[in-house]
């Protein structure tokens, strides 16, 4: 028995050490920013992405669902995910969101720090300001399509304003917030 331990244990430790050493020094495949973001939101911090409005083709690694209304049922937080990111796609100006729906979204974000959203478009800015779902006022109204986000970072609500419009940019914004909130 002692002989077996004397032989096998050192061999196992050496084998494991060599494997780790090889893993540490071997050149790693460099992931693109898009791949890194997808990995982060699909594996490390599982995120459910809900798209309301026109469809957007996101990275296939991501978990994406389409929704047809904003109700507590349709956007209720699913505990099998760590985060929920709601993408309101109004780039064609066709999204009809009522003040009531904005209030539902706001209440959900206030009661659940894992829920964030991004709005892409220009027709709903007034409603967003009116319901105070974002920290903006009339002076911040934009005539062109703008990305306005309400990002929950550890319970603190941040307002983001920018020009993210491509699927990569939309996801990258949220991935950065997740990365930095950890």
């Amino acid at each position, binding site marked *: 028995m002692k002989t077996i331990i004397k032989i096998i244990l050192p061999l196992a430790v050496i084998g494991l050490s060599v494997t780790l050493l090889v893993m540490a020094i071997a050149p790693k495949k460099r992931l693109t920013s898009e791949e890194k973001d997808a990995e982060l939101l699909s594996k490390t911090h599982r995120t459910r992405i809900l798209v309301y409005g026109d469809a957007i083709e996101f990275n296939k690694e991501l978990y994406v669902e389409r929704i047809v209304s904003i109700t507590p049922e349709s956007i209720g937080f699913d505990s099998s995910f760590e985060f929920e990111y709601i993408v309101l796609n109004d780039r064609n100006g066709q999204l009809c969101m009522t003040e009531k729906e904005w209030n539902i979204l706001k209440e959900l974000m206030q009661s659940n720090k894992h829920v964030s959203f991004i709005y892409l478009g220009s027709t709903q800015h007034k409603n967003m300001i009116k319901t105070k779902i974002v920290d903006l006022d009339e002076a911040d109204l934009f005539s062109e399509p703008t990305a306005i986000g309400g990002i929950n970072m550890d319970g603190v609500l941040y307002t983001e304003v920018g020009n993210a419009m491509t699927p990569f*940019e939309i996801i990258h914004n949220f991935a950065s917030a997740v990365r930095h909130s950890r």
Partner: protein
Amino acid sequence: MKKRIILFAIVFAVLFLCQKTCILADEGTVHISLPTDPNATIVNFTKRYYFYVRNTKTTQTDVKMLAALGRVSYFVGQYHVNRLIDQNFYDGVIVKVCMEPLEYPTYLKSNGFGWSEYLEIKSNLNSVCTVQSNYPTNSTSGSKSYSGTISIGSQASNLSFSVSNNAKYCNVVNKSQSANNIFHILYDYNPPFINFNASVNAIYFDETWQMASCAWTCPPLEDNQVYTISVKIKASFCTSKHYGVNWMDPGPGFNDSQSLLLVYRKNYN
């Protein structure tokens, strides 16, 4: 035998830690270090404005048209001292800008990548107000700009700065003695010479911060007395093949020639 096991365990632990460190080294972190002082209030730092800088050069064959080259983020905050200083209210604005290059490895193939950022702050204060700076003056408008450039080659990295001081009124924070004394503001640009090539795809929020402040004192103002602070931010991301100044539009919402205009209508009575 016991000694051998301990030795192997140590080797194993070291390698395990090395493995962990190598993984973690790729992660960037962001800190918003604000000036702190029990007498001062900081507001509005929960808004982040950003814009993606996209490739618009048709000749740049290694990068797709309209691909995001990088992202510029900026926070704008106000501070207000909760007490009178020499019978005046002391107020100010702080801007922090950072840049994040994207898809760096792709650009590295073309022998280099660079980015630069430019930050300008300009005040137009009511005539009864006085801007605090190293060169106090009764004049109430002017500007001061500051810019820095970082370029990276495949072999080495290089950092260069230029400071354009075209007026005496607002301050880049490291020059602002009065603001420094009151708010303990530290200039936090920290060039990452050593880590540049080691973690090229990390996010350089910490390393690419620029910060500017404008501080002033005012007696109590009437409601209709307005003062404005405008901030202009420009950025460029370039590969070495097409290196050059290429200022980008900050994106939607900023119609005043790439400026973010902050207007204060506050009565401190």
